[in-house]
Structure formats: structure tokens, C-alpha cells
């Protein structure tokens, strides 16, 4: 008989805590994992990294020493990644950034960063996913597709579960609304309440929502369907909007419109908004950086007469093009960033701290293997809705956790 222990999954920002991993590891026996969680779990058996310098095998000590040398010598280093690291590793990483005068940034700079800033600053009313499960009767996925990005969102929180005030759940009490440019897997669950818009038409859709809430005829979209949407919104007792990358990029520079919509909705009923974060600890990084610097993303640390100053960077592109060294922390910037940024980074000495091989680790000058957080290393993380979660490793490993590697790099300086 196989014994199981409940552990958390760090495959996405829901950080599901009901995963049953067997004592004797074998892929088919892990229970409650979604497809994304299963893929994350399979990383244990994928192409793992090993210590390397300039494409050749090296000892861990030498790789760490070389990484320290590169970062110490750099005048404008960039540390990119963070969102798939524990809060403890993020804290040590920011210490390192302060020490070497680095710029730090994460993938949220291209996605949910601005919205996360609004939530963390209290400019947008938010709630926990447990509140969604217990109270929400209307969930709006706007430019987000949880079936692909946070696969258990609908089953654990927003659509299918029977919450304390929503015992009749999706059959009678919950409405799922999708606003998207394509018929996403989530949209297929609710074809009658899916609103297809063109790329960049989110502003017009938002204005049409404001129109119908005020009883006016909307100037955008299918008028009958928009009026039906207005009726759903007005009848809602507890609604939640889950803005995704599609919507947030479209509303760049006009985020005040979203705050106007939230304010108007809350004059009619109760409406909250929760980010759909990309990495499992994106929110943890945004929160930590905000606490330490006053900014949620894109921060440069500079030394001035013994004092550490920080300033907000306009764009990752600018920081990348100024960088003369890169530390990629549990991320693959060459694969996930626009070509101009990736090309700039590929030309500077790169140090990759990663658990598995990636495009970036293949091209890096120094590779330092790390344990997979949540599977081989523990710590804490902040779920996409702001709940703190403890992470316990499911197995022992000789690999160092990211915070241990970062500490050793600092010691080697």
C-alpha cells in the first residue's frame, strides 16, 4: 500500500494545497494534479540542469564563484525572473540586487503588473478565492482563460463548487461570463455569456458596460446581448472580475477606466477583482518589492555615497538594453520575451539559476542547478489572491534551494 502526503503544487498561482504525492515517487500515482500541475511534477524527471561554465561541466563551487565574479564586475546587471521562486529566495535576491546595484524585473511587467499595483494599493476592491467559492454568483473572465492558465480555478473556486452561500452552484446560482478575442476553452463552457471582441476593443466593451449599467443603449457590440449583460450585472449579488493579459495590455494607459467600472458596479452591487497571475509567486514578488521599494515591478537599485537608492524603470526593454550582465532566476527570458529584449540579453554574460534546461540555460555562460520549489525545496509563497501558503518539499535532494544559491553567490563576493 502506498502512503500519501498532502502537499502544495507550484504549477500555477492557485498553489493547490490538496495534492497527494506518493512516498515513492512515480508520475502516474500523484493525485489531484491538473494537467499543468502534472506537467510541473514531470519536471522532476525532465532534462535537469547541472553546473556548467561556458558550456562545459564544472563543479558547483566553481560555477557559483564565476557567477559572483560576473555579477560583481557588472556595472548594470539585470536580475530577471522571480515569479517562480519562493518568497525567501525573492528576499535574498533583492538583497543581492541592492548589493550589486542591479535592476530587477519579472514577467508581470508585460502582463498583470499594473493591475497588481492597483490591487496592492487598494485602488480596486479585491477578495480571496475562498470568498469567490462561498459567495460569488457572477465570475467574469476578461482576457483570461483559467482553463489553460489556472486549470482548477473553475472547479475549486469560481464556477463548479458548492460554496457556503452557493449550494446550487453552476446549475442555478453561478454565472460564468467570458470576454475574449477568441473562443477559449473557458468560453466553451458558457457560449451564451461569451462576448467576442476584436484585439484592442476592450475599451469600447468597457464603455458599453458602463452604458448598459446607466440604462443607455450601448454603441458597441451586439446591443441585445450587451443589454442582457447589463441585466446579469444588476442582478448579481457578489461579482468578481478576473482580468487577464489580453484585457490588461489593451487597457494600458487607460486603467482608470477599469477603476471607473469597478466604482460604478459597486454602486449597483458588490464587485471585486482578482489578478490571474502567471507565476506561482508573482504576487509574492510584487508585494515584496512594493514593501521594500514602493514599486511592484521594474526597479533599479543604485549606490550613492553608501546609500542604496531605488527608482522605477519605464520598461524592461530599456533595462535589458542597458544591461551588461543577466541573472535569470528560475525563468527563461530568451524564450518568453519579445525578440528585441531577448536579443539584447543574449549578447551579455548570462548566469542561469534553474532547475531544468531552457533556452536561456543553454546559452548561459554559467549554469547553476537549483531544486524545484514546492517539490524539492520548501518556503512560502503568496497565492494570486494574496493568501500566504507554506510549501513543503515532497522529496530530498542534493540540489540547493534558490535562496541558498543566492546566499552563496553573495558570500563568494
Amino acid at each position, binding site marked *: 500500500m502506498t502512503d500519501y502526503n498532502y502537499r502544495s503544487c507550484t504549477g500555477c498561482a492557485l498553489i493547490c494545497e490538496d495534492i497527494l504525492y506518493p512516498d515513492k515517487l512515480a508520475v502516474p500515482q500523484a493525485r489531484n494534479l491538473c*494537467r*499543468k500541475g*502534472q*506537467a*510541473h511534477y*514531470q*519536471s522532476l524527471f*525532465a*532534462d535537469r540542469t547541472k553546473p556548467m561554465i561556458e558550456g562545459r561541466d564544472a563543479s558547483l563551487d566553481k560555477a557559483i564563484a564565476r557567477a559572483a565574479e560576473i555579477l560583481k564586475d557588472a556595472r548594470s546587471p539585470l536580475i530577471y525572473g522571480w515569479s517562480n521562486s519562493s518568497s525567501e529566495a525573492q528576499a535574498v535576491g533583492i538583497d543581492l540586487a541592492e548589493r550589486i546595484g542591479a535592476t530587477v524585473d519579472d514577467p508581470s*511587467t*508585460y502582463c498583470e503588473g*499594473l493591475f497588481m499595483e492597483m490591487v496592492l494599493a487598494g485602488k480596486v476592491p479585491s477578495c480571496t478565492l475562498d470568498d469567490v467559492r462561498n459567495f460569488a454568483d457572477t465570475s467574469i473572465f476578461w482576457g483570461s*482563460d483559467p*482553463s*489553460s*492558465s489556472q*486549470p482548477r480555478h473553475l472547479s475549486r473556486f469560481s464556477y463548479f463548487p458548492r460554496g457556503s452561500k452557493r449550494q446550487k452552484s453552476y446549475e442555478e446560482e453561478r454565472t460564468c461570463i467570458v470576454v475574449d*478575442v*477568441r*473562443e*477559449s*476553452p473557458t468560453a466553451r463552457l458558457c457560449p451564451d455569456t461569451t462576448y*467576442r471582441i*476584436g*484585439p*484592442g476593443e*476592450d*475599451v469600447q466593451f468597457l464603455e458599453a458596460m458602463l452604458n448598459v449599467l446607466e440604462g443607455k443603449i450601448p454603441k458597441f457590440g451586439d446591443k441585445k446581448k450587451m443589454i442582457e449583460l447589463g441585466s446579469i450585472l444588476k442582478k448579481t449579488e457578489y461579482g468578481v472580475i478576473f482580468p487577464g493579459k*489580453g484585457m490588461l*495590455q*489593451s*487597457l*494600458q*494607459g*487607460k486603467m482608470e477606466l477599469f477603476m471607473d467600472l469597478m466604482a460604478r458596479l459597486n454602486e449597483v452591487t458588490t464587485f471585486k477583482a482578482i489578478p490571474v497571475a502567471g507565476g506561482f509567486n508573482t504576487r509574492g514578488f510584487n508585494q515584496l518589492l512594493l514593501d521594500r521599494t514602493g514599486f511592484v515591478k521594474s526597479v533599479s537599485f543604485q549606490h550613492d555615497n553608501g546609500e542604496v537608492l531605488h527608482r522605477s524603470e*519605464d*520598461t*524592461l*526593454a530599456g533595462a*535589458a538594453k542597458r544591461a551588461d550582465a543577466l541573472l535569470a532566476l528560475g525563468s527563461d527570458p*530568451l*524564450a*518568453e*520575451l*519579445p*525578440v*528585441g*529584449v*531577448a*536579443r539584447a540579453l*543574449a*549578447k551579455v554574460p548570462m548566469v542561469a539559476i534553474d532547475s*531544468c*534546461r*531552457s*533556452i536561456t540555460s*543553454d*546559452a548561459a555562460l554559467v549554469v547553476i542547478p537549483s531544486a524545484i520549489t514546492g517539490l524539492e525545496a520548501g518556503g512560502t509563497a503568496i497565492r494570486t489572491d494574496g493568501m500566504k501558503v507554506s510549501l513543503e518539499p515532497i522529496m530530498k535532494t542534493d540540489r540547493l534551494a534558490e535562496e541558498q544559491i543566492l546566499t552563496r553567490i553573495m558570500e563568494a563576493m
Partner: protein
Amino acid sequence: MAMEVKVATFRDIFQYEAGRKGMHSEEYLQLSAQIIMDKEDLTNLGVKDGGRVLAENEIGSVVLVARTSADKAHPGVAFMIESPWSHQLEDDERCKQGALGFRGISAKVSPSQDNVTELSEIVQRLKE
């Protein structure tokens, strides 16, 4: 024959899974190096489902496999799974704070006889 399209990118769970197994795998290539287009748009281009197209703009170019969309008609709008292939067409300044809203990636699509762009070629381009 060529046509201008707006490309919207999205995340796909199957491609994510393939990437976790190995980004140099055939499965990851097949899922990433594709562009999903409106049926009528593909007909107008003279390209069948599974045919190859060149997607290009002032940022870069990639040869992709064209797939027919199962969605309702969306002429002039194409979809790509977010990947190193879609990033070849992406402007790195588009998320500048205070910038105008992102309205999809503008690209020109035309039939192609060339091989689908390999990941190794993309990595090589980054180093040049």
C-alpha cells in the same frame, strides 16, 4: 498573395506541457510554430489547413504552419500560442507604461514553400 492580420497571442496548456518535457521536442515545435486563421482568410491566401505561411513585420519573420480556426468567423484576426515564434513578431516597447493600448501584433501573412522556422534558428538569430 499576402494579407495583413492582427495576431492575438494566448496560452495553451498542451503547449505548456510539451515545453516542460523539452522545448526542443517535435511536439513543442508543432504546437508553437502555428498560426490559427479564419477559414475564409486562408482560402483567400490559397493556403490549406496544414500549409506553410510566412508571417512577417518590421520586427521579424517566421515560417509557420497555418491552421484553420474552429471559432466563429474572425476575418483579419489570427491567433498564435505565446512562444519564441510569436515573440519574433512582438515589439518590445509595447508595454511601456502610459503607452497606448495594445491592439494585437500587426503582421503580413503570405504562402511559403520554406521549412517551418526551427527553434535552433530562432536561438541563432538572438545571438547574431
